[in-house]
């Protein structure tokens, strides 16, 4: 049938044309673009890398102020101490401030999520998911903080690269990540005492808590994150779950990975965890109480031990969803008090 032949011919022509132009394009595109398009399998061991790499304040050869390796394994070089810093992630803005730095531009989640009180001079550069590149460039920043998990950040990086604006990717999920980021930030700002105060002291606090429960066998728990799209059980790569794990609990989602995708009532009843923790985006007391009432009235949920013993607990999102940064110790404490009331008054 002539139609089919023509279709195949056309397809082949375009396939060849595309292959050729792809080869040409590949060789002319900058290396940053190639990196940005690689899968986002980010090393969790970045902290080890950072510690073994140059953190020298003075590089005799090039007179560079500071350089480090960021979360995407790019070497970030700061020629001078940055004074015009923009953060595209609210949590990183807070960390930068905790390191004694100053900001000229932030994304609006700094206000909506973190409720930080910022001076009016600081420019809002858009949302965390969609930062406005023009506004950022207009500020003439000399250092930008980004996240490798957000596509618009990855795209922005290629432009920042071309514009010779130093920028660093940070990935913070657990306390160690925060600590490492604080380390780098305080290196840059030169306020190492803040590393001690906002970092090492918190570490100490956490270590003390964990020491007290070292030999305890923790209860079975289930952790759920409830968003407008739906609720999912969380296990591995989640900050709250790590806290729970450190405190000796057993997450039933570890035994049943299917729970991560689909909250199966059957499995939950079968496992009957002692505690059920929920983190929601809801703010008001009313919404949270409404949620609890609904659960208590639901025949399936109300049959669970955790609900009967009033161990169905809605956690504050500031401590268990958004990165608590310097309050990480508080998060551990909050949870420890719930799990081991005898030990922690």
């Amino acid at each position, binding site marked *: 049938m002539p139609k089919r032949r023509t279709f195949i011919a056309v397809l082949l022509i375009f396939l060849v044309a595309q292959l050729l132009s792809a080869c040409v394009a590949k060789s002319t595109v900058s290396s940053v673009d190639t990196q940005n398009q690689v899968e986002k399998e980010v090393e969790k061991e970045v902290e080890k890398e950072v510690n073994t790499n140059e953190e020298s304040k003075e590089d005799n050869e090039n007179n560079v102020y500071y350089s480090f390796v960021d979360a995407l394994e790019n070497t970030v070089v700061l020629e001078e101490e940055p004074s015009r810093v923009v953060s595209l992630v609210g949590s990183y803005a807070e960390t930068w401030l905790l390191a004694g730095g100053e900001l000229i531009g932030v994304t609006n989640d700094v206000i909506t999520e973190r409720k930080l009180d910022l001076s009016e001079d600081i420019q809002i550069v858009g949302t965390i998911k*969609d930062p406005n590149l023009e506004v950022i460039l207009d500020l003439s920043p000399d250092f930008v903080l980004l996240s490798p998990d957000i596509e618009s950040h990855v795209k922005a990086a290629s432009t920042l690269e071309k514009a010779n604006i130093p920028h660093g990717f940070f990935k913070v999920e657990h306390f160690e990540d925060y600590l490492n980021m604080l380390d780098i930030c305080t290196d840059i700002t030169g306020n190492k005492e803040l590393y001690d105060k906002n970092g090492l002291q918190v570490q100490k606090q956490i270590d003390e808590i964990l020491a007290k429960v070292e030999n305890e066998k923790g209860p079975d728990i289930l952790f759920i994150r409830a968003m407008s799209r739906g609720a999912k059980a969380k296990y591995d790569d989640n900050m709250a779950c790590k806290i729970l794990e450190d405190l000796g609990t057993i997450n039933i989602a570890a035994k049943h990975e299917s729970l991560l995708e689909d909250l199966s009532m059957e499995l939950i009843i079968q496992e009957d965890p002692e505690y059920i923790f929920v983190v929601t985006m809801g703010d008001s007391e009313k919404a949270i109480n409404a949620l609890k009432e609904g659960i208590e009235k639901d025949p399936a949920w109300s049959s669970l031990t955790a609900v009967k013993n009033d161990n169905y607990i809605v956690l504050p999102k500031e401590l268990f969803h958004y990165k608590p940064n310097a309050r990480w110790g508080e998060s551990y404490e909050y949870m420890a008090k719930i799990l081991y009331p005898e030990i922690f008054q």
Partner: protein
Amino acid sequence: MSIWPKFSIRKFFNKNSGSYNGLVIALLLILLIIAAVVSIGSSKIPVREIITALYHRDINSKTYQIINFVRIPRTVAAILAGCSLSVSGAILQSVLNNSLASPNIIGVNSGAGFLTVLISAFFPASLYFAPLAAFIGGLMAVLIVFLIAQKTGASRMSLVLSGIAVSSFIGAMTDTVLTLNPDSAIDRAVFLIGGFSGVTMERIAIPAGFIVLALLIVLVLSYDMNVLALGDETAKSLGLTVGRLRFLFLGLAALLAGSAISFAGLLGFVGLIVPHASRFLVGYDNRFLIPVCALLGSIFTLCCDVLARVLFAPFEIPVGIIMSFLGGPFFIYLLIKRKKGKLYG
């Protein structure tokens, strides 16, 4: 228009010699608009400064950075997407004899979107093939829609219905892929609505090639499209190979739409509105309709993009939303005004 009762825009465009005036005016208009668009943004940059910045090419000048890395790529992307989508719509409306045909009703959008998402989910390293994938996806969807419509009588209603059915089905498949692979490189919401934020010249280089190629072919064949409009039998009698030509035009429409989708996401309504508006200005002769569609489409998209950037600065509304806001009411107007769905009397 009421100020100059003797002067009718329509007559001015619709001259005997075939609307050359229309073309010239549209060309001048687009140059004006490009100049305006590049100077407007979160900050106004006067045209003189733009020219100086481009001349000196100082990487460290923030004016140059903004112009070169943000505004120019966006402007080029908007022009390309605007003209290719509206020409695609014009082709589909003419060839399928259906005034409600447009890339997103006929299945091109969903087909292109599906394959693009599939590639980013399973072959993220091959994102260079996104334009080709979008093209193939678009073409296959159009073919399926066309075949189904033919089987059911090829009336304008059956075409729209089968387009909707096929689009929904493919959309469901796309959603499934996105749900199971939430880490797909393409940010779901942004892609589905469509926008130009973060676009770079590298990203649009290859699709641009396809678009220009397809536009040239369409322009050359625009007279044949006129003959096709006489009806299959008359056209065949005049020596036209109707089947093959129609297939070629569908392929070009799919290529144009698919290429635009690969960097702009699923933009709606340009393909529907602009051909109608152009027809109002220059009539049905495709030799003039196609170029005017291209120009008007670019102008419309540019204007929507400026609005998207400026309305709530520094926050950006995706262009697709603005287009739908304007396109939706017009679509309803079309449905009411049109007695039958036929393009030709």
